[in-house]
């Protein structure tokens, strides 16, 4: 456990230092959401109706933006070789890295949501509902995105390939995330069903993500 907590601490520390990239995601999230009211126009009702979808899209794109650094940096400086050779299981090391990435890059998105909700004419309960769905759903984005990040290292292609690989995997999360938020805001369907599926998606990704990422990294050693 010391080994894994050391890895989590290191990754969070790097992300929070200058040039670390934790803030890039939040800034991107902020700019996407701030631009939306200008694009849609001053129709407050329309904004409130689109609000949850806009917040979810912004969070999805922001988490993609920082994901390609997840393994690439460690691969480029040789750390990944030592992580693979170590006495810790590679699956757990992958899970620790994803957890650190979520804490440094995913959690700030949720913290920023109440502020952005104001810009989209969402009232307090609606914003809280969206923040709650983001809290349940963004771990799934990180843990499925990790598979793409590992493949990007294996195939020596970063950036766009990651987006192409990961976006289809994140569609279910997006569907149920937005469905749960809208159910909480306007009804008439119940909030519970889509929210439970969202939580289930996150739980499945906790298991599948690290195993798939570790398999991909092992395959791609060179």
């Amino acid at each position, binding site marked *: 456990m*010391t*080994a894994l907590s*050391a*890895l989590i*601490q*290191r990754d969070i*520390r*790097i992300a929070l*230092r*200058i*040039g*670390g990239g934790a803030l890039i995601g939040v800034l991107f999230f902020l700019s996407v959401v701030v631009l939306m009211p200008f694009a849609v126009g001053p129709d407050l009702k329309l904004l409130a109706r689109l609000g949850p979808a806009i917040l979810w899209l912004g969070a999805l794109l922001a988490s993609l933006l920082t994901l390609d650094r997840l393994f690439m940096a460690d691969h*480029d*400086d*040789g*750390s990944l*070789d*030592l*992580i*693979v*050779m*170590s*006495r*810790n299981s590679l699956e757990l090391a992958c899970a620790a890295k994803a957890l650190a990435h979520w804490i440094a890059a995913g959690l700030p998105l949720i913290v920023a949501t109440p502020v952005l909700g104001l810009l989209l004419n969402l009232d307090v309960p609606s914003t809280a509902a969206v923040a709650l769905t983001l809290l349940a759903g963004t771990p799934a984005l990180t843990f499925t995105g990790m598979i793409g990040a590992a493949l990007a290292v294996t195939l020596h292609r970063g950036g766009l390939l990651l987006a192409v690989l990961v976006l289809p995997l994140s569609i279910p999360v997006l569907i149920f995330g937005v469905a749960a938020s809208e159910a909480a805001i306007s009804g008439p369907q119940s909030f519970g069903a889509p929210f439970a599926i969202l939580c289930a998606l996150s739980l499945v990704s906790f298991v599948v993500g690290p195993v798939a990422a570790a398999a991909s990294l092992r395959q791609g*050693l*060179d």
Partner: protein
Amino acid sequence: MRLSGRGVSCVRGGREVFASLDFEASSGEALAVIGRNGSGKTSLLRLIAGLLAPAAGSIALDGGEAELTLPEQAHYLGHRDALKPALSVLENLGFWRDFLGGEVFDAGESLASVGLGHTAHLPAAYLSAGQRRRLSLARLLAVRRPIWLLDEPTAALDAAGQSLFTGLMRAHLARGGLIIAATHGPLGIDAPELRIGGAT
């Protein structure tokens, strides 16, 4: 403890780098891998470290700790030094010490013994090439592993650094360690040579 390879072949990118290579080394012995550029020295070390799979042949470790694999008992010191520029020297070393685990020693003392004690709180981004190499050597001291796989270990080291490193290798061999080093220059210790890829 005895590390041996039988008929090891390596294929990289569809091209055969070397074939049917035999080698062995026991506790307290060093092996110097010598060959021209591109002859496969680094590939051989990565094969032993389990970071590449051999195209043919096998690499085996007799003795050592039974429940651990060969890579888990080895240190690999490659070209890339696994340092994070944003973290301080001590944080970098402390992380590897905690993450690699096993029998570990004080990070500060390890830094002092490679002559980096005064830079402990400096971000690693400001280190020179030689200092980065010394920091990698400190990893060998902070975490004990019986097998050292060293790729051009003396590159970028100054004369004092090279003699320091020779001392570290001697101490490691005296403790019953095993060293396999790819090198162009003299290692400074008695080591049988393993030539790969024809004449140098």
